[in-house]
């Protein structure tokens, strides 16, 4: 689960990490008041969306307006906020559709001496979280990694003991932090690691992490996301979810325990298992079709959940045919057929349906299909299924 920058900074502040002073604004008047309250000569006003590249991003309705602006007066804050709030920001990460900006974050200006990169992720190889740091702040870390890998430093840490003083020292040395900045790192780095572990983060990225003229490490941005599977023990975090940032169909699928990703094609797919679901998409494409979605019903889904899966697929106006590919293990094939028949009854199929079943309780499921008088195309294997569903579109 992703959260907004201002929410991430509020959580960091609550955990004792020093962050710049900032105020949330939802109207132009609030933006003006925020500038006044901060009291400085300069402030930064930033669009709050779940995507990066905001500074270079522009609004659809206001092509000259950037997503992040420097402001020097309350009037400037108000005027900019009027051009930003309620409008659609397009950045390299949002896609062409862009995202609506509903919230602005007005933050005090800082005297920046240096900009660094700092990120924490769970690393598969070392089997635990790893701190990734770079002297190249503000850049996309993938680019730095590709072009100048020697400028990236890594420290894996144990979740039981946190980041050790010796590890802080070596990161400070590599980043060239001295004096007050090194002392600031001794506090900042272990605290951020502790925050990551205590909140079950999946990523905490501070880019840039600035060193102020006074030698304080301060997060200028904060991109924090959480492990969905651990939200049950972080109620306060779960409440920060912003559904307006997510695809409506994906949210609906998630509520039913399904894993769904909307794609551009016209063949709806209902599959059990992520690997088989991806492979089914691959095979459709190989035979000249285009998948309309990835949909993994998982193993534990009941008839209601699978019926909901059909609703979600059929609600997509692009879907012109549906392919069901089930290899039952924990999922029973008869559950799927029951849901198919239920979907005919309650949702109605206006497009052709191709079904391929194998695995747990397949005999029972095939009998149920044969006994129904629904117009269902059955397939014997993967290739057969893909060819048949693509053929329905040509016919």
């Amino acid at each position, binding site marked *: 689960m992703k959260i907004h920058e201002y929410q991430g900074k509020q959580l960091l502040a609550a955990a004792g990490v020093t962050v710049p002073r900032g105020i949330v604004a939802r109207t132009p008047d609030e933006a003006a008041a925020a500038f006044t309250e901060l009291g400085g000569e300069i402030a930064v006003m930033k669009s709050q969306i779940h995507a990066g590249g905001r500074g270079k991003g522009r609004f659809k309705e206001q092509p000259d307006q950037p997503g992040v602006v420097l402001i020097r007066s309350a009037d400037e804050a108000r005027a900019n906020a009027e051009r930003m709030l309620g409008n659609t920001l397009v950045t390299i990460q949002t896609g062409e559709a862009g995202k609506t900006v509903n919230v602005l974050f007005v933050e005090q200006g800082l005297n920046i001496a240096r900009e660094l990169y700092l990120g924490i992720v769970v690393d598969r190889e070392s089997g635990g*979280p790893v701190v990734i740091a770079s002297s190249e702040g503000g850049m996309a870390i*993938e680019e730095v990694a590709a072009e100048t890998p020697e400028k990236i430093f890594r420290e894996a840490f144990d979740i039981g003991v946190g980041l050790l003083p010796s590890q802080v020292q070596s990161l400070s040395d590599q980043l060239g932090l001295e004096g007050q900045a090194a002392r600031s790192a001794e506090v900042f780095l272990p605290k951020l690691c502790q925050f990551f572990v205590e909140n079950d983060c999946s990523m905490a990225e501070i880019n840039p992490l600035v060193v102020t003229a006074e030698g304080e490490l301060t997060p200028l941005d904060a991109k924090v996301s959480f492990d969905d*599977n651990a939200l049950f*023990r972080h109620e306060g975090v779960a409440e920060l979810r912003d559904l307006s940032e997510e695809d409506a169909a994906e949210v609906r699928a998630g509520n039913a325990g399904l894993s769904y*990703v909307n794609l551009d094609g016209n063949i709806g797919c209902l599959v059990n298992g*992520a690997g088989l679901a991806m492979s089914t*998409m691959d095979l459709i494409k190989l035979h000249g079709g285009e998948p309309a979605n990835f949909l993994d019903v998982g193993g534990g889904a009941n008839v209601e959940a699978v019926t909901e899966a059909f609703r979600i697929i059929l609600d997509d106006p692009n879907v012109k045919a549906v392919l069901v590919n089930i290899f039952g*293990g*924990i999922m029973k094939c008869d559950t799927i057929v029951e849901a198919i028949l239920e979907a005919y009854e309650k949702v109605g199929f206006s497009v052709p349906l191709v079904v391929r079943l194998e695995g747990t309780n397949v005999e029972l499921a095939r009998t149920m299909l044969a006994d129904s008088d629904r117009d269902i195309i059955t397939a014997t294997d993967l290739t057969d299924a893909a060819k048949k569903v693509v053929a329905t579109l040509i016919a």
Partner: protein
Amino acid sequence: MSILVDKDTRVICQGLTGRAGLFHSQKCREYARDECRRDSPVFLGGVTPGKGGTEVDGFPVFNKVADAVEAVGANTSMVFVPPRFCADAIIEAADAGIKLIVAITEGVPVLDMVRAKNYIDQTDSRLVGPNCPGVITPGVAKIGIMPGYIHTQGTVGLISRSGTLTYEAAWQMGRVGLGQSTCVGIGGDPIIGTNFIDLLDLFQNDPGTEAILMIGEIGGNAEEQAAEYIKEKVTKPVAAFIAGRTAPPGKRMGHAGAIISGGKGTAAEKVAALEAVGIEVAQSPADMGEAMQRAIARQA
């Protein structure tokens, strides 16, 4: 011969009294009885805290894994407990001396798995999973949720990151007359107990395995590392398939590990790494069985 599972395997189920735990324990018991014709039972009971001393469909229930080890001599555990208790269940099993822990549970918090894996690494227990279909040695024992009938005895070792795609592969191999020595689903999560390389090593050293089929998917670099390992250490024929050629970057495809991030972990990169070391890569998911056949024929 086989790996991980053999005639001495004695299994209990942690989370036996849950719906899925019981159903699949029954299926595993049936498989051992009907397909393997074993003299002594393979599935010996289960653990559900607070329900010790009771019985469910002929399976004795114990409060603790240690009790089950003492009472029925269990050396293997199949874990079906809910996600939030899974790491503790794994640690408990290892602590009780269980040698093979097969965690089926899906949705375990990642940092819980970091903790469990740290613990397991200090013991001589092996963890497979979590979020995996389990392990089967056809004709000997099935520990997991895979349908038994698609597997036949043979000499191909099967390793897969994906559950249902493993079934697809076993089924396709059956259609071209290739049986399996052992099939292992390693799970689709970022932190897993046993990886491709661990199993490539076991299969390479298993006299009952003559060829290896490896099924990967987008995300991470486990397949690239496996390719390096195969080049150095594996002399048996290897075929592979990578799921997710058409997956868009930045979108998580169901498995917690299946995401193309920062342009890394694409299917194209993985296929290239595997082909570069001479592995026969199936170009379509319908071609896995035949790709294995080609790899065997090529090396014969």
